[in-house]
Each structure stands twice: as structure tokens, then as C-alpha cells.
């Protein structure tokens, strides 16, 4: 039976892992290579490394960080953050990534999805979408958000005017193999994934959807798999700081009836 995946995310800047709470207030949680292997041994089904460096100087270390992290890692490894072209994607694949995740660059030029998928296969292309509920003021200004969620770019700083569900559908048509869907409203809160958002995208698409933003206690993960129809759930800070052991989470999810790779 195909299991639901628990994905550990490492937010990296200048080669060091940090984690933002609602995209700000960064804290240092260590070495990416070390953390990736630790997460793998603890039972993570995949590792995602997101480069959130604000400057090019810091981003220049990415290939080296990826190489070091990939070296001892024998589970799927995704790298994202700031990849703007096929050449940049190729450098990341060469360094040892199995999949790349693109966000702002895909919205700016959706053909990038297709060109990477043609070279490496759709399974290697994840389109990341940062979405925010378009209720209140935003909705009245942007009547086209029939789905109720707007896609943002530039680390969540810039609204795009695109409906998140419609954009996800286009990304699939252009060759994306998976969608990494982050709820900006929930990111870093631990208050639970946005199941409504996740379900809307998951049901509109025929490719796997990874839910992100809001993961907290076991219940929040049960909900996103059962009510949100997520194929995978991603979380960062709750693992790094020992608030919850990955293995405990997977065991509890299995006990709650969610198919898990556990023990592994």
C-alpha cells in the first residue's frame, strides 16, 4: 500500500539551517548535512532543502551545501529556493538533488516547468505554491479568486493576483510532478495545516500534493491526510527543535489509521 509521506524541510541560508516563524524571526538550527541524515535515520520519508538566502553571495554556496547534504543521504532529496533557470536547475541536479522545487521563477515564466521536466522528467519537478486566504479586503479587490486562495511569490512578500488552485492546475498541465503547497496563514504557527486549501488543490489535480505550513501535534497531520486529502505533509521547526520526534509522529499516525512507512 502506498503510504502517506512525512517530509522534513531544512530552510537554509548561507549554508546553515534556519527556520522562520511566519517567514520571519529566523533561528539557527544547525548543519544541513548533519540534520538531513539525522532526519532520515529518524524516519523522514524525504528531505527538502529550501535556500531562503536573501543575497547572491549567500546563495553561491548552494551547490556546495547540496553536495555535502546529498553525500550520505539515500532517500529522496529535493532542493528549492531561488532557482531561476534550466542552467541553475542543472547545477543543483549535478550536485545531487533528485528533484527541484521552483516557485517565483515558474510564475514569472511557466515554460521553465516544461523545460526542466523535458530534461529530467516530471517526477523531478515540484512546483511550490505559497497561498494565502483571499478573504476580507483582498477578496473584494480581486474578484477572480473563486477558489478563495491567492498565490504569492518572493518568499511570501508579493501577491501575484493568481488564483492558487488555477495556478496549480496550470503547473500540472505544464509538466509538474508534484505540488508543494504552503499555507502562508498557517506557516510556523503549529496550529494545523489549512485543510480546505489542501483539499481544494488536491482534488483539482491528478498529481501528488504536499501540504506545508501549520504542522503541529499528531492531530494536525491526521487532519491534513484525512480531511485535506494530502499525499504528503512537510514540516520543519517541529522536528529540528525536538518538539516532536519524527518516529513518534509516524507511529501515532499509523495507530490513527494513516498508512505510514513505519517502522523503517
Amino acid at each position, binding site marked *: *500500500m*502506498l*503510504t*502517506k*509521506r512525512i517530509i522534513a524541510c531544512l530552510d537554509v541560508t548561507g549554508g546553515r539551517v534556519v527556520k522562520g516563524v511566519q517567514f520571519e524571526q529566523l533561528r539557527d538550527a544547525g548543519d544541513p548535512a548533519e540534520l538531513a541524515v539525522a532526519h*532520515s535515520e529518524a524516519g523522514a*520519508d524525504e528531505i527538502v532543502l529550501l535556500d531562503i538566502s536573501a543575497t547572491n553571495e549567500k546563495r553561491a554556496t548552494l551547490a556546495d551545501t547540496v553536495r555535502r547534504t*546529498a*553525500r*550520505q543521504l*539515500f*532517500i*529522496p*532529496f529535493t532542493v528549492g529556493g531561488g532557482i531561476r533557470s534550466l542552467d541553475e536547475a542543472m547545477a543543483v*541536479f*549535478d*550536485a*545531487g538533488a*533528485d528533484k527541484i522545487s521552483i516557485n517565483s521563477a515558474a510564475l514569472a515564466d511557466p515554460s521553465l516547468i516544461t523545460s526542466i521536466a523535458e530534461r*529530467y*522528467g*516530471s*517526477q*523531478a519537478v515540484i512546483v511550490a505554491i505559497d497561498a494565502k486566504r483571499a478573504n476580507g479586503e483582498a477578496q473584494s479587490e480581486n474578484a477572480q479568486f473563486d477558489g478563495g486562495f491567492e498565490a504569492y511569490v518572493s518568499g511570501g512578500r508579493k501577491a501575484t493576483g493568481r488564483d492558487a488552485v488555477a495556478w496549480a492546475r496550470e503547473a500540472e498541465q505544464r509538466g509538474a*510532478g*508534484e505540488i508543494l503547497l504552503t499555507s502562508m496563514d498557517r506557516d510556523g504557527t503549529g496550529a494545523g495545516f489549512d485543510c480546505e486549501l489542501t483539499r481544494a488543490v488536491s482534488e483539482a*489535480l*491528478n*498529481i*501528488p500534493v504536499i501540504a506545508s505550513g501549520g504542522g503541529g501535534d499528531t492531530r494536525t497531520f491526521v487532519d491534513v491526510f484525512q480531511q485535506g486529502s494530502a*499525499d*504528503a505533509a512537510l514540516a520543519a521547526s517541529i522536528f529540528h527543535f525536538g518538539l516532536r520526534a519524527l518516529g513518534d509522529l509516524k507511529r501515532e499516525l499509523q495507530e490513527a489509521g494513516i498508512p505510514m*512507512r513505519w517502522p*523503517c
Partner: protein
Amino acid sequence: MTTMIAVVDFRAGNLTSVKKALEHLSAEAVVTSDPRVVAKADKIILPGVGHFAATAVLAETGLRTAIQERVERGAPFLGVCVGMQWMFESSEEAPGIAGLGLCAGRCERFPERVKSPHVGWNSLACREGSRLLRGIPSGSFVYFTHSYRAPVVAATVARSEYGGEFSAAIEQGNLFGVQFHPEKSGTIGLKLLENFCAL
């Protein structure tokens, strides 16, 4: 004397992780697209992600002949993902392109009622006596990512289920194939590669 494993590069996807896993196991591997290197290899691994049509290159470049001849003389061969599908007669993904036909049957798309690609960790139902799966119990989880699947045939040594049963691993004499990615399947995957290296 060490044995040399040729990892065949036919420009279909990313071979870094296969090579890395073999290095981790201290196996001597060379990534090559040269039929002469393949013809002299002790063992051959044909990885492959992406489209079945990409296997057309193998016939055009002489790699197909080199692999066939080497395999007929007994060299162990491991096809991974599309590399395993190529061991069948054909695929619905690229109907005009012939596979090696070592196993009868055609690879088909997943039914529409399940999401495709099939991505993630799925369990194996293993058959006793497989050399490739030695020490890997039924129920072990391995990592898949594919949109087409091979049927269950006489050579099938492990089945998986996703919208119906399909071949997760095949084995027939010195020929081996896995639909999943052993290089991405944690300790279980490394064990399988170790078994292949030890043949």
C-alpha cells in the same frame, strides 16, 4: 580483482544518486555512454527516469547491442525504473519503440481512478528464493516514482499494489529489474544494491 559496474548513461535523467549509492557500497562504478565500455563491464546497471521514448537512444548508439551481447555472455544486468520497463516488449508510453523483450508483456499507464505518477513509499510482496532480494522481507518499503507500470509475469519476484498489482522487481537468471529506486530507498535499497554487487 575488483569487478567493474557500468552505469549506462543514455541521457534520461540523473545518474548522480545511483553512482553515489554504489560508491557508498565501495563498488567500482563507471558512468558511461560508450558501448565499448559496456561490452567489457562485469555488470551493467541501466537506470532511467522519464520517458520510455528515451530508450530509443540505446538502439541508435549501439548500446542496446552491447548490452544484449554482454548479457548473453552472463553478465548480471539490473534495469531500474524505465530501465526495468525496457526489459519488457513495449510500453504504452511510446508504442513504436521496442523494448528488449526479455519478459513478455507491455507496460501500461495507471488507471485513471488513482493519481499518477505513483510517487512515494510502497510495500513489496516478495517471492522466496530471489537472489536480488536476499535479506529483504516482504512488507519492506521502497521508493517509487513512475507513471507506467509493468505487468506481473513469471519473472516477477516482488509485486506492489497501486490501482492494481504490478511488477516491482523481476529476476530471471542473470537479469534483474526494479521499478522502484534502490538508490533512494534507504537501507532496504542499499541492501538490494549490495546483493547485486555481490553476485
